[in-house]
Every structure is written in C-alpha cells, then in structure tokens.
C-alpha cells in the first residue's frame, strides 16, 4: 500500500516538474495559456491514474493508441513518396546482397571441384575443403577472388603415413608407433571425421585410448598432414586453380590427445 502510494506521488512530482520545465522553456506568454491547458490535463491524468486503473485497465496504452491514431489520420493526408535517395539505397542493398550470394555460390562450387580433384589425384578423401573469398576492387567493379583454401583431411595415424607429421611429435606418437599394424587397417575403414564435431576415430581401439589419456600436453586442434600428401594436394590446387602455395592450408585433426 505504501509502495503504491509512493509510486503515485513519484509520478505526480515528476509530471509537475516536467510541467515547470516546459513553462520555463516556452518562448513567450502568448502560448502560455494553451500550454497550461495541455499540461494541466496531463497532470490531471496522472492524479486520476489510480482511479482510472481501477475502472478500466491500462490507460497509458489507450492514450498512446489514441495519439497514434490521431497522428496517422493527419499523416494520411500527405502522400508518402519514397525519395530518390531511398530508392537508390535500396538498389545498392539489393546489389550487394546479390553479389554476396553469387560469391557464396562460387565458393561452394569451387570447393566441390577441388574436393573431386584432390580425390582423383591423391586418392585421399578430404573431409572438407573451405574456400575463403576476398573482394578485389578493380576500378569501379568489385571482383571476387580466392583468398585462402583450407583442405582438411580425416585424421590419419602416424604409422600409416610415410613420414611422421611435421607437427611436434609427442609421447603418444612414439607410443603409437609401437602398436601393431592390425589396428591401423581397421581404423582406415572408418568414415572420415567431421571437422566441427571432432570425433576422434582412434577412440575405438583401446590401446590408443589409454595411451592418449596418459599424455595431455598437446593442446593443438590441428596438425599438418604428412609431407607427400601435403605436396600432392598443393600441386593439384596450384596447377588447377592458379593459387599461390602460401594461400593453401592442408591440415588434419590432431589425434586424440589434442582434445583431451
């Protein structure tokens, strides 16, 4: 009850202060009487607000709805025409959107083509090929060009690769080379790792799991693939699409110790 009374008094004091400030701001006495009428009505509305709320729900909503309706009826008399600048800005927006869509389509088509080419020449299925595009300004026209290409291969065990990975080999790498060959053949048959989820394939072999949990020093999510595959992939992309070698990233998910 006291809180409600306090709220009410608070409202009244605020409206009256607003009224005083408004009268101070007015430029001359001629408008004073009329302004006083309107502001007096506002104060009256505030004073009556508990009563009004008791009788018929929310008055503020009704009031704002009334004012909006009033303004709309006056605005409808003027024909609203979009200006030339509006139309041009809209056209610019649409053009930009269209360019963006075209670039996205180009990117996806390129990455698909690259994936097929990599499979054909290296015999390894890449789990994902991401093409990053950049915008080049030539005169007035903006053209799209390939910025970087990231090729992600499914994770491969170090011992089936010809050379050890160039990333720092850790204890688990050394451990795993002592494992038998039969585990690796089995792993190759498993479907490729999806990059985002990062499910490690090696989780199926128990020995790997145990050795992976022993060493958790390496926190890298990605590691380079073996040198030959890297070279082949780079050659395919450089010859086929004219990319500079430094714009190509070839990688594979780090083995299980990376995620632990």
């Amino acid at each position, binding site marked *: 009850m006291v809180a409600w009374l306090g709220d009410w008094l608070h*409202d009244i004091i605020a409206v009256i202060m607003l009224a005083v400030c408004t009268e101070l701001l007015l430029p001359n006495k001629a408008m004073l009487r009329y302004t006083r009428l309107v502001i007096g009505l506002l104060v009256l*509305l505030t004073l009556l607000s508990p009563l009004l709320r008791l009788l018929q729900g929310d008055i503020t909503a009704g009031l704002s709805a009334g004012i909006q309706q009033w303004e709309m009826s006056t605005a409808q008399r003027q024909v609203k025409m979009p200006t030339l600048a509006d139309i041009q800005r809209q056209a610019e927006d649409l053009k930009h959107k269209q360019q963006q869509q075209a670039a996205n389509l180009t990117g996806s088509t390129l990455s698909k083509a690259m994936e097929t080419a990599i499979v054909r020449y290296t015999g390894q299925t890449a789990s994902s090929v991401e093409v990053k595009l950049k915008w080049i300004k030539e005169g007035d026209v903006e053209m799209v060009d390939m910025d970087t290409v990231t090729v992600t291969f499914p994770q491969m065990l170090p011992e089936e690769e010809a050379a050890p990975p160039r990333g720092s080999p850790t204890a688990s790498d050394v451990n795993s080379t002592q494992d038998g060959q039969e585990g690796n053949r089995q792993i190759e048959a498993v479907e490729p790792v999806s990059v985002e989820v990062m499910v490690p394939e090696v989780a199926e072999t128990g020995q790997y799991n145990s050795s992976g949990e022993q060493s958790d020093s390496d926190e890298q999510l990605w590691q380079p693939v073996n040198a030959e595959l890297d070279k082949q992939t780079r050659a395919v992309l450089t010859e086929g699409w004219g990319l500079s070698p430094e714009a190509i990233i070839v990688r594979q998910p780090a083995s299980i110790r990376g995620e632990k």
Partner: protein
Amino acid sequence: MEIIQIVGLGLIATVLILVVREQKPLFAFLLAAFTGLFIFLFLLGKIDSVIAVLSDLANRSGIPSIYLKTVLKIIGIAYIAEFGAQIVRDAGQESIASKIEFAGKILILVMAVPIISVIIETVINLLPTGGGAS
C-alpha cells in the same frame, strides 16, 4: 561566452539595418531575418541539453513516454510559431504574424485532443450506466 557573440552579432546587424533601410528596405528585412535565423539555430544546440535533462528526468521517474513526447511537441510548436511570427512582424505584416501565432495555438490544442478524449471516456464510464436508474 556565447552571449557576447550573440549580442555583438545583434548590434552589428542592427547598425547595418539602420544604414541599409533608407536605400533598400527589402535588404534590411532580409538581413534581419537571417540574423534571427542564425541566432535561433545557434541556440538550438543549447536547448538540446535542456531537453536531454527533461528526457532523463522522465526516464528515471518512469512517467509514460507519451507525456514527454507531447510536452516536447508543445515546446517545438511554440518555438517555431514564435520565430516565424517575429520575422513576419519585423516585415510589418502584423496580421499575418497573428495568424501564425493563432495556428501555433490551435496546433497545441490539437495535442490535447487524445488526452481529453481519454478523460471524457473515463468520466462517462464512471457514471452509472443507464440514466433511468436514479
């Protein structure tokens, strides 16, 4: 120190107008109008801070924003009407100036229409329905 600038500008404009008025009354009027416009625009930025205080007050005290909007509209109409009426009055057209002021008053009263309608609606609801009950 803006007051020195404004008073200086006003004095210079007055002297120039007195000089020019004898030869070209039209230019004297234009000079007066542009001086008035300049001072008006110059002070518009200052009024901005006062209005910021008002809106801050309204926000903090939680009074409906529709009240503040109405009040600000009243102030704006009053200022613009006053300014236009003064310029026209300077040109010697007293009757047009009073018409402009009249229009300002009417537009301020128009602001009150939704408020009055809400109050009247409530008062009518307050009365016992059906006059025959008495």
